């Protein structure tokens, strides 16, 4: 096995699928010759040729629409949106179009498109680069939203996404791209979509998170252990649809939960999870289910980023509130 960063695992997943299936196409702004602004597509054009890995004009709506057209002719497009803040430029192509095409063709035209895009805070980007917009995507019926938290999952989830016959929004947290390496098999494997992972078993409180916040939760869990609180940490991996079964099973065991997201508080993934927990497990709860989120402002790019973003300390505080309720 090889030691890989998350970005290397992502490149490896695309290479695997480009090799496996001639219908797979990888394209976007600067993904060809340049290998992508984060080098996610490094070497792929050289290996598979310009016909399958190519640059597009700088126009996100065009990229989204063209992906749909290619899917209509039997291809399996893997477009990149250079930064997910640019998704607003292609909201119709994604939410108004590709998400609805299977329905709009009476179930006859699949849209096997995987839209890859970097997002997430803490790396000092300009405005509209770091925003967590997964909640917007999750509200759109017909879309799957996948967010890996580590290199192993990133490769397996991306391969599963590319093979899926419905559109997947695959969001890659920028802070995780090169922050650590882990063992990733060089051969192909898949990680199941729509399935959460228990990253740390515990008995006292359930922490639910995804993306970079999984690591903040794990760090918080270590801190909490010093105070005798044994936290279970769940990594959602797919945020739409949510694997409520795994969450509910855990909450029924721990009787307490804190849901963590980097996105703003209102109308997000976390709010939905809190609702579902109280609908399905209220009699198991010893305390209200709390949320750790960013405040309801636009992303505090560069200036107040460190305070704006949730971190292990703010998670520990909320867990203490829940434990002491």
């Amino acid at each position, binding site marked *: 096995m090889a030691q890989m960063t998350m970005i290397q695992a992502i490149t490896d997943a695309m290479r695997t699928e480009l090799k496996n299936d001639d219908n797979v196409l990888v394209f976007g702004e600067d993904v060809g010759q340049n290998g992508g602004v984060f080098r996610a597509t490094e070497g792929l054009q050289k290996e598979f040729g310009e*016909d399958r890995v190519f640059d*597009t*004009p700088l*126009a996100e*709506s*065009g990229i*989204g*629409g*063209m*992906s*749909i*057209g*290619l*899917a*209509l*002719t*039997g*291809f399996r497009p893997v477009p990149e949106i250079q930064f997910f803040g640019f998704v607003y430029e292609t909201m*119709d*192509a994604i939410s*108004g*179009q590709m998400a609805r*095409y*299977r*329905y*709009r*063709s*009476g*179930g*006859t*035209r*699949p849209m096997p498109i995987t839209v890859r895009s970097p997002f997430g805070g803490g790396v000092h980007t300009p405005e509209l680069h770091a925003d967590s917009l997964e909640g917007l995507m999750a509200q759109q*019926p*017909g879309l*799957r939203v996948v967010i890996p938290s580590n290199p192993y999952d990133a490769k397996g989830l991306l391969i599963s996404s590319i093979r*899926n*016959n*419905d559109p997947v929004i695959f969001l890659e947290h920028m802070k995780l791209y090169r922050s650590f390496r882990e063992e990733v098999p060089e051969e192909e494997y898949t990680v199941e979509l*729509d399935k959460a992972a228990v990253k740390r078993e515990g008995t006292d409180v359930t922490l639910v998170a995804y993306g970079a916040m999984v690591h903040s939760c794990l760090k918080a869990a270590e801190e909490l252990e010093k105070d005798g609180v044994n936290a279970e940490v769940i990594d959602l991996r797919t945020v*739409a*649809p*949510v*694997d*409520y*079964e795994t969450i509910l099973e855990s909450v029924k065991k721990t009787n307490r939960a804190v849901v963590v997201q980097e996105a703003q508080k209102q109308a997000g993934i976390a709010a939905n999870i809190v609702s579902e927990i109280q609908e399905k497990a209220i009699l198991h709860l010893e305390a209200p289910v709390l949320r750790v989120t960013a405040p309801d402002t636009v992303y505090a790019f560069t200036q107040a980023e460190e305070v704006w973003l949730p971190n292990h300390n703010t998670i520990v505080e909320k867990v203490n509130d829940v434990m002491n309720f």
Partner: protein
Amino acid sequence: MTLKRTLENIENQFETFQILNEEGEIVNEDYMPDLSDEDLKEIMRRMVYTRILDQRSIALNRQGRLGFYAPTAGQEASQLGSQFALEKEDFILPGYRDVPQLIWHGLPLYQAFLFSRGHYKGNQMPEGVNAVSPQIIIGAQITQTAGVGLGYKKRGENAVAITYTGDGGASQGDFYEGINFAGAFGAQAIFVVQNNRFAISVPVEKQSAAQTIAQKAVAAGIEGIQVDGMDVLAVYAATKDARERAVNGEGPTLIETLTYRYGPHTMAGDDPTRYRTEDEDNEWEKKDPIVRFRKFLEAKGLWSEEEENELIEKTKEEIKAAIKEADNTPKQSVTDLIGIMHEELPSNLKEQLEEYKEKESK
């Protein structure tokens, strides 16, 4: 000294291409397409059929027996002349007014009625019919057409993607992105803009400073042509030429057809008297595509009033049968809707499916 100006020079290049004038006379013999007498009659039959279908659809809509409907009368030459130039394998990405092209590409009429009623079965193209159902978002289909045209190029298919929008659609960002992508990738695509002079109520003069929509092709580096959209032979010839060049690797084409919709924008309450004059309506009706084509065919001895009346009766019968078939199709349920959202149901919908199965079984 002033800097060199180019706009006027470019705009002067875009003359309206016409073959058949308002009197039904061939005025551009050099471009007369190679169509058999039977082809010419078939084009006439399709235009008459579509005019009757439009009249019946408006009536059915007023009786509450149809859903969303965008009238087509006046635009038959633009719609059917271009579709007649296609091959079966060509892919149509229509706008919401472009149901006639789908019907002549192979969508059964009763399904067109189901589309109007919002039934998912109206969106299921029969096997081998390369088309998607009409687009509601103005311009969204244009970038998709670049993708289908690129897909055909990548596969080496002898086929094109063709899309339709109106003059309003030519203002959308997706219009420019679509033709620009198609040009950049050499997509096998044809973009038809049916310029019927109004984006609902806003006249073309207020929509753009450009004198023609065809000239917008220049900015994308693709071919553009303005065609008399009331002349079915000119529309046919322009589309046929665009198709040939596209499959020969010579790039996409933007076709602007100058046309007019006699009716309202849709049947949902639009009142054209608020933004058009009767004089203008009358001027355009003099250019009517069916009237001039009838004159042309009659002069050739290929058409008679008797034949047309027979066709009209037959068409009315077909429409009656199709609406009956649409009426006999079981109503769409929420359970049906859940079933066509995904290949594999996600967990949330599995739960909701059970809920609605129970509700709808009562």
